[in-house]
């Protein structure tokens, strides 16, 4: 997993509730058996006017210039500012892979769907939950200020704004540590392999039907 420590970047506003993972990466791109290469199809149906299929050359497609991702001022954006229930719907981790492949490292929203939130943390895309008021102020600032950049400091759990204000954010200590050190959580879990095995053996005795896979 990619490490996350501090990040300074341009903010792109996406002013919609319930941005679902079908919108983040449409189903036709889920046929890939790889983890990379989804960036050009991030928000495909909002971003292009034509219908996208895997393997199409993005340069030859007709862009929807009204969509925020295509606005020149957000070309270098690495921080996505969203609204309620960001990442709802399908469990597809491809949504996180697409956001990261495009260059996003942080998503800030008042609330996230649980599976998306978890998937983001597994890949080093930092999901930050802020109060509605802070989110509203960030939207206002981003829209008013071209090139609006903020600094995200994970160890300090702090966002620094250009006007020198800071916003504190919460993160679970386990996830914080994993992000900063870029830990592989399978390795972490396997450190407890003996405990898992003994749990499993007990379960085999108390609920043997769960281990009886014959049909």
């Amino acid at each position, binding site marked *: 997993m990619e490490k996350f420590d501090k990040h300074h970047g341009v903010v792109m506003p996406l002013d919609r509730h319930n941005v679902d993972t*079908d919108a983040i990466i449409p189903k036709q791109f889920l046929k*890939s058996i790889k983890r990379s290469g989804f960036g050009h199809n991030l928000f495909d149906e909002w971003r292009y006017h034509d219908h996208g299929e895997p393997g199409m050359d993005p340069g030859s497609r007709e862009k929807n210039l009204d969509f925020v991702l295509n606005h020149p001022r957000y070309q270098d954006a690495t921080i996505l500012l969203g609204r309620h229930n960001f990442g709802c719907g399908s*469990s*597809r981790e491809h949504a996180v892979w697409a956001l990261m492949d495009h260059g996003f490292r942080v998503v800030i929203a008042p609330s996230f769907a649980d599976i998306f939130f978890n998937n983001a943390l597994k890949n080093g895309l930092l999901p930050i939950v802020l109060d509605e008021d802070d989110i509203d102020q960030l939207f206002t600032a981003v829209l008013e200020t071209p090139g609006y950049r903020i600094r995200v400091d994970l160890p300090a759990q702090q966002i620094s704004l250009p006007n020198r204000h800071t916003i504190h954010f919460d993160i679970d200590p386990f996830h914080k540590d994993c992000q900063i050190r870029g830990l592989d959580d399978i390795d972490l879990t396997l450190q407890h*392999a003996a405990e898992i095995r003994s749990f499993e053996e007990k379960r085999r005795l108390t609920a043997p*039907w*769960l281990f009886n896979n014959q*049909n």
Partner: protein
Amino acid sequence: MSSKTLYDKLWDSHLVRQDEAGTALIYIDRHLIHEVTSPQAFEGLRLAGRKPWRTDSILAVPDHNVPTTDRSLGIADPISRLQVETLDQNCAELGITEFLMNDPRQGIVHVIGPEQGATLPGMTVVCGDSHTSTHGAFGALAFGIGTSDVEHVLATQCLILKKSKNLEIRVDGQLAAGVSAKDVVLAIIGRIGTAGGTGSAIEFTGTTLRAMSMEGRMTVCNMAIEAGARAGMVAVDDTTINYLGGRPYAPKGELLDRAIESWRALHSDPDARFARSVTLDAGLVLPQVTWGTSPEMVSAINEVVPDPDDEADSVKRDGMRRALDYMDLKPGTAITDIHPDHVFIGSCTNARIEDLRAAAAAIRGRKVAAGIKQALVVPGSGLVKRQAETEGLDKLFKDAGFEWREPGCSMCLAMNADRLAPGDRCASTSNRNFEGRQGQGGRTHLVSPAMAAAAAVTGHFTDICQEQG
């Protein structure tokens, strides 16, 4: 000992360890796998030189990409084919049980798990698919995971989790004739919103749930995720136990007796506390139809499309405007004046035998209306299909003008060839009406199987309660 909810009991009985901050390692009993969210997990496993922890906990099936028409020629789309072949290869190599595309037991992963008895009460069930919540209908803790977690479960048989909050959704009373489990769950989502259950595990309780069949309970739990909750569940009772008897993967004989004894404890204690409870009067629920691009954008059949101008929250108002624009609907339009041109009866929400029976009954000898370009019935599994054919339902559908297909996800997400064209309007028994879900530019109205069938034969949404009354 303090009183526990069903979720507390399931959590505690799978807790391998927990640190001071509450991060837990939870043991997984059943791992369901399909072709779309697993290839990268298998690849990750291989790259790290790891082996699956317990292959006998896994059941795999291709469902998202499979064609629903003649399968003798295989899958035409080469990328879809590669994905299904990759699943076949991974399973063959690692000794994982897979129902191949041409196996009569093949079907949608959330239909075949319960059908095979591979989903049992008291289990933890995971799958790289958000509608894994379906399996909670059996008093199991079941939830969707991303691909990294698929790999994690493959490698360790566990997941790293934090406990969710307990949310009770209590539905009491009797449903009117023509009102189904689908209407109940859409009404719930309309009430609490698509983020209403975020961070929570929902237990559906109340007399309405107790009276529901397993099929109905699965429909309700299936859409818990559309209410924002990763897991939805229903306590075990005789209905649960009777459903499981004789299923291939379910225990038998003396083992079954022992299992039943332990399953009987899978309910919330009478004085268990929920962080929050929401109640719904089943007697007030009418057939539901979504009008927007989120399952919470839903109205009863006797209502009209709402007016965004009446919405106080500006972001919500913009969202409604965008949805109505996408759906090409005007505020104030009667729901019964909406005319779909496609009908899709299928998906892990509503493609079980009871759903097909309800749809067939609503046809009542009529034919698909002139304005309908396509009406599809896609059974949830090969066994559902066979059962329906034994009952003559296939003939009923075909005589009415429906297409009778092979099992799979089909037009629920349109990853195979079954999809809407831009501007098409579909009455669908699936679970998501997101933009583009059933095909780019396609417009989806979520309804129950009986409502979809009635729309097919009348050409517009119809109040089936009135019809039946």
